């Protein structure tokens, strides 16, 4: 205990503003502070201020609170919570910190007596410390829009990844979970899409190192993306700081905002051991309502009749004669054959400790989580080692090493119609069976092959197919901090990232439709893929701080970041091995082997400078500037060139006025803190392709020889996208911090935006990549945190955040065509949002041939032919008044961008119990339900939803479901508002109950038991499985439900033990 106390003083008292984020309960921690009444002994004749520190919850005084004035004086509160401290003048800021409590920067507002109440350290408030790249800073002093979350490991949400964890937690950060696949994570958007074709994902920095989230090759597994952020265990994370504007310091990589993740380090020298173990159950999703065998037979008869078969022919088909043909007489629920519930396991161990020279934190984790599709699961091992070294009085060092390995069994998802089990489970004829049934009717143990309708056996797609993804990531860095004197420091972080993904796939022959290739029939298809990424990163900066007198202080940093990255991908696929058991590429038919891949290399240098100025602790000014060079920029990319290298110069300026610290606010008891912020900055996006600026040549075969042809039209002036952000914000803490409020209004202008500019027929290429678009995002964010009930026994806190924005294309080159993705068409036009669904409006179904005739409309099909509408065809809305329904009648039929998204969090604590509930919502976003489009198109043998029972069959029938015709010759299933649905939802995202077990055992410090339920309910009108998904990060894939594994409900029970 003595050792602990000593180290506590030495480490924490001089460290002025440190949010002590231990996870223990406040009450237990308070005991460990040695109470001694302390009066400042430095300047006895100086101006003094006195005050009391109370626990905001109990109202009881807190003894032993460290009270200080920066570079001036320090004191501790006595057992009545009282303190006295010298101050240079009444503008001084009194810094308060105590273990287990929030840190606070108290403004005197001209008063010599202050009353301070402290909430527990997990309380989210304006005094939270944002862990910014060049040092920590309390949110009450930031000039930019910054949010900070002290995750403290979030032990109650063990199976989450950092990206999905952020959902509903930060205003203006829209996290959309990609699918229900374990570990798949979420697409993150800070303040909307700031780019069309370059990345829109924020930059992630983990412990000072840029953490590359891209995968530099497509997966061989349909619908799958590797989530690199899953390699950082949430339980390792201490703090996540989200910088929404003022990211100029990250230059051309800061356009989409920056997420800084800080992993846990040793909290002290004492050896501590944290252990967590979880087990859980994943439930199935509710089946979509598809037809059973009887209804499906009637549908088939209708369909076959439309293709010209006679009643007698149809009647003689084996599947029409239930009973006579056992193989066609089953009633199989195929959805149940391909999906199942599952289990999850998660173990975690962390050891930390050290001595006065070195402290360390070592953690290890193991996760095993079953997927929704049968035979799929994720296994991950993680380890992380963080060390801090005091090498000398002046030199400190850090080391961070993390390695993780994940192995994931998957199956094809999305639009792989022959191999996606989930899709096959919906469309497969229900009278068939997973196993062969010979004529006598006994079920054979052999899996059934491809059926008479050329449809794969869904069961084979889960049992025989292989889709294995293994990925590894090593991130290692060392950092140095050398203090030349009190004013100058030099710091550096140097590290490497090595990432590797290996994939092995097999499309089996048994039960899966063969592929028809140009030169052969591909019966089975093994594939292998390796994607490597390696990067060296360094961030080196000199910092300077100086206080001119007690009222003015200045901090400045000058540094550079250099990032050299290489990626390589190599894949091979082949066909026709000897059998499905023989899945190596060596065994494929040599003439059918396809190999390919890509190699990329790029360098980025970001030289930056920043000056923070603070006057009277009320006025804050920050100036940042970055000068970026990148190997991606064209040779004529900019006006500024240094030594032949083009430079992007990106400044930002921001100011904040802490109004509440003004003397005139003295009387405003209700307003504890009120800060007005304004900032304007320019950042960039350098994700413009590695060599789009250069004219290059690609290979072109001529018989068995290789020639070279042009791969593009070069664009030597290709440059970064310029993103100008203006932000005005207000941060407030009211009624003794019972209400914390943050409001931001912003306007983001993107210029030099990358587009594929049409170049005309004579150029030889249809498009060239140019910086010729511009776009605007205007938005509003509100974050509120309240403590509604706050007493000794019961605490109820509620947090609410909401973000909304409007996206608008400001300029585009002429002739930009429509974008398509998975059957959806997006319109991109000046003055409108960039990705509006653009298709046909419908108005029911022609009730009769006569009515169709009377319309006088002709139907222009995609092959250009004109046919008249018939009874039972969809009434497409004619917008231009001509007599033809064609592409000129297309109009905006939906907007995939939500009107607003946000989260509602509740925390209820009673004695040793606490209950957390997070609701998330998205309102006003439209979804193109591509799965339903195939399940209600009525054009082939695919089983359909029950909705098609209402299909048009006879003249005069009024319905909104068209006729069933083989091949859908009238294209009734074209992209129209029939498939656009409201994707708004309100979801009980996570609810967790924890109980702190009272322990008296000496060896055990604490134990907590958790019960967590995820995705408990979703209120939505959406007809698909779940309205939350993201099949691609691209703006032109947003809102398209391609049929990925849906998000499912799950529960976990867990225990955390501290030794």
């Amino acid at each position: 205990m003595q050792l602990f106390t000593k180290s506590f003083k030495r480490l924490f008292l001089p460290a002025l503003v440190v949010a002590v984020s231990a996870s223990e309960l406040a009450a237990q921690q308070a005991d460990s502070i040695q109470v001694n009444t302390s009066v400042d002994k430095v300047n006895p004749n100086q101006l003094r201020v006195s005050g009391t520190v109370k626990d905001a919850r109990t109202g009881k005084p807190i003894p032993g609170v460290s009270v200080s004035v920066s570079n001036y004086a320090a004191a501790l509160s006595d057992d009545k919570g009282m303190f006295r401290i010298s101050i240079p003048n009444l503008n001084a800021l009194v810094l308060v910190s105590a273990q287990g409590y929030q840190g606070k920067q108290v403004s005197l507002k001209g008063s010599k007596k202050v009353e301070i109440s402290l909430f527990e350290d997990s309380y989210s408030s304006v005094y939270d410390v944002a862990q910014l790249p060049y040092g920590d800073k309390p949110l009450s002093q930031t000039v930019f829009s910054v949010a900070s979350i002290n995750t403290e490991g979030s032990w109650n949400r063990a199976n989450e990844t950092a990206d999905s964890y952020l959902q509903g937690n930060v205003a203006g950060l829209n996290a959309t979970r990609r699918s229900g696949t374990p570990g798949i994570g979420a697409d993150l958007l800070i303040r909307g899409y700031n780019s069309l074709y370059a990345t829109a994902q924020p930059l992630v920095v983990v412990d000072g190192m840029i953490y590359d989230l891209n995968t530099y090759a497509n997966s061989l597994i349909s619908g799958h993306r590797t989530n690199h952020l899953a390699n950082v265990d949430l339980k390792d994370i201490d703090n996540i700081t989200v910088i929404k504007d003022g990211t100029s310091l990250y230059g051309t990589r800061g356009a989409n905002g920056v997420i800084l993740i800080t992993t846990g380090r040793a909290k002290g020298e004492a050896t501590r051991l944290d252990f967590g173990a979880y087990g859980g159950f994943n439930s199935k999703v509710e089946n979509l309502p598809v037809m059973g065998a009887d209804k499906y037979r009637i549908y088939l008869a209708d369909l076959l009749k439309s293709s010209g078969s006679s009643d007698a022919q149809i009647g003689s088909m084996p599947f029409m004669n239930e009973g006579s043909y056992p193989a066609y007489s089953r009633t199989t629920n195929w959805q149940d054959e391909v999906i199942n519930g599952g289990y999850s396991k998660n173990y975690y161990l962390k050891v930390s400790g050290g001595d006065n020279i070195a402290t360390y934190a070592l953690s290890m984790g193991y996760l095993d989580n079953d997927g929704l599709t049968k035979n799929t699961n994720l296994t991950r091992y993680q380890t992380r080692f963080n060390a801090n070294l005091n090498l000398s009085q002046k030199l400190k060092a850090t080391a961070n090493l993390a390695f993780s390995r994940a192995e994931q069994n998957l199956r094809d998802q999305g639009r792989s119609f022959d191999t996606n089990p989930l899709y096959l489970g919906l469309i497969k004829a229900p009278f068939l069976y997973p196993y062969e049934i010979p004529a006598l009717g006994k079920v054979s143990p052999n899996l059934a092959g491809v059926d008479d309708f050329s449809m794969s056996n869904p069961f084979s797609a889960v049992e025989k197919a292989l889709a294995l993804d293994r990925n590894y990531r090593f991130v290692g860095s060392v950092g140095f901090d050398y203090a030349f004197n009190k004013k100058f420091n030099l710091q550096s972080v140097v590290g490497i990232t090595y990432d590797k993904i290996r994939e092995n796939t097999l499309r089996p022959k048994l039960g899966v439709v063969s592929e028809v290739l140009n030169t052969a029939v591909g019966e089975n298809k093994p594939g292998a893929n390796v994607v490597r990424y390696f990067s060296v990163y360094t961030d080196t900066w000199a910092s300077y701080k100086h206080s001119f007198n007690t009222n003015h202080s200045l901090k400045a940093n000058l540094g550079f970041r250099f990032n050299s990255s290489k990626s390589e991908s190599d894949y091979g696929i082949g066909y026709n091995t000897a059998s499905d058991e023989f899945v190596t590429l060596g065994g494929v038919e040599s003439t059918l082997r396809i190999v390919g891949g890509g190699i990329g290399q790029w360098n980025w240098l970001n030289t930056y400078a920043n000056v923070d100025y603070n006057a009277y602790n009320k006025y804050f000014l920050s100036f940042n500037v970055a000068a970026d060079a990148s190997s991606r920029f064209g040779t004529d990319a900019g006006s500024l060139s240094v030594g032949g290298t083009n430079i992007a110069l990106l400044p930002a300026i921001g100011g904040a006025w802490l109004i509440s610290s003004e003397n005139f606010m003295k009387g405003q008891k209700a307003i504890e803190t009120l800060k007005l912020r304004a900032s304007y900055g320019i950042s960039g996006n350098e994700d413009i392709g590695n060599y789009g600026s250069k004219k290059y040549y690609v290979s072109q075969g001529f018989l068995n020889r290789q020639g070279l042809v042009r791969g593009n039209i070069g664009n030597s002036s290709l440059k970064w996208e310029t993103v100008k952000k203006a932000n005005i914000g207000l941060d407030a803490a009211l009624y003794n911090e019972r209400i914390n409020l943050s409001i931001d209004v912003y306007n983001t202008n993107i210029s030099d935006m990358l587009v594929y500019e049409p170049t005309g027929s004579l150029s030889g290429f249809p498009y060239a990549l140019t910086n010729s678009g511009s776009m605007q995002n205007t938005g509003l964010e509100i974050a509120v945190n309240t403590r509604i009930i706050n007493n000794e026994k019961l605490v109820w806190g509620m947090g609410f955040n909401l973000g909304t924005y409007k996206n608008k294309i400001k300029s585009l080159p002429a002739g930009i065509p429509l974008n398509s993705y998975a059957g959806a068409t997006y319109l991109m036009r000046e003055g409108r949002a960039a990705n509006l669904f653009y298709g046909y409006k419908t108005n029911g179904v022609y009730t009769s041939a006569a009515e169709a005739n009377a319309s006088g409309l002709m139907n222009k099909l995609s092959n250009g032919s004109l046919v008249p509408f018939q009874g039972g065809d969809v009434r497409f809305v004619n917008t231009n008044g001509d007599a033809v329904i064609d592409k000129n009648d297309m109009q905006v039929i939906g907007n995939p961008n939500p009107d607003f998204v946000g989260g509602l969090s509740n925390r209820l604590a009673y004695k040793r119990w606490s209950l957390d509930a997070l609701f998330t919502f998205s309102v006003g976003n439209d979804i193109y339900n591509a799965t339903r489009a195939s399940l209600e198109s009525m054009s082939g043998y695919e089983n359909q939803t029950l909705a098609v029972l209402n299909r048009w069959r006879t003249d005069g029938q009024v319905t909104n479901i068209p006729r069933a015709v083989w091949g859908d010759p009238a294209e009734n299933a074209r992209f129209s508002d029939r498939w656009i649905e409201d994707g708004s939802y309100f979801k009980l995202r996570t609810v967790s109950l924890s109980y702190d077990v009272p322990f008296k055992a000496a060896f055990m410090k604490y134990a907590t038991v958790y019960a967590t339920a995820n995705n408990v309910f979703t209120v939505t009108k959406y007809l698909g499985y779940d309205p939350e998904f993201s099949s691609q990060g691209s703006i032109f894939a947003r809102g398209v439900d391609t049929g990925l594994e849906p998000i499912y409900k799950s529960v976990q029970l867990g225990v955390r033990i501290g030794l």
Partner: protein
Amino acid sequence: MKKNLSGLFKAALPVMVCASVLSACQKTFDLQPKEVLVTEQVYQNIYDADAAVLGIYGQFMKLAGRYVILNELRGDLLDVTPKSDAYLREISLNKAGSDNPYADPAPFYEVILNCNDALKNFEIMRQKKLLDETQFYQRYTDVFFVRAWLYLQLGIHFGQVPYVTEDIADISVLKDQAKFPRLSFNNLLDKLIADAVSIPKEYLGQNTSLVSPTLLVPMEPYLLKDGVFKFFIHRRSLLGDLHLWKGNYLQAAKYYKDVMETGSSLTTTTNYQIDIYDTYRITNDNSGRNTLLTNGTVNPWRNIFSNALEETETNRERMWTLPFSETFGPVNPFLDLFSISKSYVLKPSDVARANWANQVRTDGGLTDRRGLESSYRLVNGQPEVLKYVSNYDPLQPFKTSGIWMLYRAATLHLRFAEAANREGRSKLASVLINDGLYTGFGNKVATYNGVTDSYPFDFDPTKGTRNGVWYRSIGIRGRALNQNVIVDSTRSFDMAVNPRIVKDPVLLTQDTEDLILNEAALETAFEGYRWPDLLRIALRREKDKAGEGVKYLNAKLAAKTGNPATFSTVEDFYLPFR
């Protein structure tokens, strides 16, 4: 220990500062791509130059389907089927809308871009002495003529087109669209002819392996024989075509004649495994195995379109062919377009079939042997173009090898006849399309106005102790074993005097031209010449007498479409350029 470490750090400091300065240097930010090649990495040696040529031909082959659709479906011999989509129907009716994917000039310009790139860089390589004169010209000329061929196609179909010869290396080049004015077809021809003057005469022969040993190496599965050099564009015949389009008939005839006499002007080399004597002459070599006469149980004439590339007799006929291989891309597009067992969107028109049915053979019977079972066949009563599918067996769907025939001797003879006729040699022209020079001129050197004709019309078909080089000539109809066709003498000859005197040379020329055109329909149907032939005649007659050309084309198309007024002006002949 502490001191040491901090010392180390102090020592490391200058290194880090240096690194930061170094990292800022230009080299760091001028990385060479690793998966593609940039300008500095190509055109470094002769193999790079060869790669450029091969790349262009690789791309060129992707135009095959579009070439046949535009050049035949717009004419009267090829028609749509019930399976054809509306866009093909539009092409067939010559009513293509602006969204018609076949009426898109962009695929031609894609190859032109590469031609321009290669031409510019070949010049640079020549200046840098990376290519010697012969190496340079063999490659430069090939690419040059491929580009000219592409522009001729663009002119034929789009009329007014931009003549881009500048390398569009960077997007900035496109900023000034004034640099790419659209030339009328006529001006385009002037440009193409004028630009071709720069090519020295000795490089007008088709590329052979002897002059380009690096470019022409055996290609699996094709041996280094005739087939190989026939991959490359036939330069002189293209020059002939340019002049024929322009109306320089004498110059056109000269180029054609030089090609027709390839067999007697070329030295024999190991590359010529064939008996070169009969090359491009349409002859009967009297060996008893001439495979191209339309007799025999299986008509050998059809082998022109199906024989292996290195086969001797067919190589006397084939001049420029590009092979589609079942092993390498691109996939043979013709099977899908024509085969009944595949998409079957194109079929012979009734006009074409009736034309064959109406020919009289030498044996007195009706129907031309080049029609049914040669140019087309009936499968379950449905007509199918056989020229493209004769080697295709639906039971072996992956055996898709085939050839794209771009030029052959019959085309050459027909074009020569057309030029000669316009130079007053109606007799010579009709002899060439009928039963040949030997019979036509009665064992005498070709005459004009009663005297022995001069170059390029000086054919020597005499047979005696020393045979003239044309004595084996059997003519196009002769080879088809058809009876001769003759003009209606009463229209253009003064029948009262003997020997007859031409009373209306214009009418004689026009009537002979009609015969040539009809023979072209019989001989070369579906091969991609019909629309250009009709258009050329129409433009010529329009020039002779306003309105005649429009009338001519309307009449030809009306036979297929039933629409007597497809075009109202010459501008209507062309597709909209976009």
